[in-house]
């Protein structure tokens, strides 16, 4: 790892000030992606701004039919929260499937979405539930937040404060985890409320998480398993690497969609 400076901050304002004053700095939350990346010398920030101890970012609460999760809340806390288990069980199940217990004790929801890894789980929940992301500057819909591979709408001096998930009981996430890393080889999040059906896919596209509009349309016309089975994801623009070809991943997304649909209807 290259040498860097380090600063632990106590407030959101302090974090933003540090980011503004140090353009080559990076926010450190759980560090479960950032530190391994720095060890491989794929990232070399001049300064790390450690936000893990900012009290006001670590919370889970219910507010007007939403579950709001502070950005430094770790995956274990989300997966074991009784409130989330009761209100959005699909979200607690998703958190429980990230990495392993030790990684879940450190990794944070804010870090996961800010990094926007194309195979991460949380981006699928954000898009699939229509979450609202509050930053140090503004509020963004998940649809505006995730731009592309490892790219979000966040400005250089902006950090995620919290994520607000609408309470939608009829939702389910199914992924096929890479056997070594547990990242999604393909993961599909489906949700259905009175007005909206959303289907989000992670792990598959070369441009990161996306809404599968053909599938949403098909399910909106007819909420049935055959509607899911009739839609096939095209391998075009789907990732291809040593873990699987684009055809393999596209097919996997179809299967995960069927299982997610079955999960809601069980």
């Amino acid at each position, binding site marked *: *790892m*290259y*040498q*860097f*400076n*380090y600063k*632990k901050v106590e407030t959101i304002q302090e974090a933003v000030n540090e980011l503004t004053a140090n353009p080559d700095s990076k926010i*450190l939350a759980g*560090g*479960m992606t950032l*530190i*391994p990346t*720095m*060890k491989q010398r794929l990232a070399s920030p001049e300064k*790390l701004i*450690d936000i*893990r101890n900012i009290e006001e970012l670590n919370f889970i609460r219910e507010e007007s039919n939403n579950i709001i999760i502070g950005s430094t809340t770790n995956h*274990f806390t989300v997966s074991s929260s009784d409130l989330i288990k009761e209100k959005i069980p699909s979200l607690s199940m998703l958190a429980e499937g990230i*990495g*392993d*217990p*030790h*990684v879940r*004790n*450190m990794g944070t929801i804010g870090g996961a979405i800010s990094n926007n890894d194309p195979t991460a789980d949380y981006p699928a929940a954000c898009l699939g539930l229509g979450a609202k992301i509050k930053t140090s500057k503004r509020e963004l819909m998940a649809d505006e937040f995730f731009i592309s591979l490892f790219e979000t709408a966040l400005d250089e001096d902006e950090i995620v404060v919290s994520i607000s998930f609408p309470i939608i009981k009829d939702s389910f996430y199914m992924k096929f985890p890479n056997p*070594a*890393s*547990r990242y999604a080889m393909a993961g599909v999040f489906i949700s259905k409320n009175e007005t909206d059906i959303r289907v989000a896919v992670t792990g598959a596209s070369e441009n990161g998480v996306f809404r599968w509009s053909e599938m949403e349309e098909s399910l909106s016309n007819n909420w049935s398993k055959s509607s899911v089975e009739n839609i096939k994801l095209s391998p075009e623009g789907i990732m291809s690497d040593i873990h699987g070809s684009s055809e393999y991943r596209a097919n996997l997304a179809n299967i995960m969609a069927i299982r997610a649909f079955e999960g809601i209807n069980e």
Partner: protein
Amino acid sequence: MSLVELEINGNKVSHDVEERQLLVHFIRDDLSLTGTHVGCDTSQCGACVVHVDGKAVKSCSMLAVQANNSKITTIEGLADGENLHPVQEAFRENHGLQCGFCTPGMIMAAVDIINRNSILNEKTVREELEGNLCRCTGYQNIVKSILAASEKM
């Protein structure tokens, strides 16, 4: 350099460290507690698991500076003098190790698993061991050891 002050296995320590120093290297090289192992160094294998403020973490993926002001327990902090911790004892009784390289991480993970789950079954133990790799035992006796220890704790 940054000053790191923390409590490890009940002892207070204070050290200047490079910001880039990993917690596992701080524990092994600066504090000479070599029970915690570096296996894969890519946060897959779990040989480096220690408890930071009561939570099991991979010390190869955490900076020493992040652990400032924390309480750490390593494998050396489990036994009570000559008396082994129930999980250590169970690993010995049930032949839960062969080469022993993964064992410190396995045991630290196991203590955490038992602390978090009042009722344990084989399925839960196997799922919870997701982050710990063993290349000798085939896990059979590790799972047996953890289940046996959970009865005694």
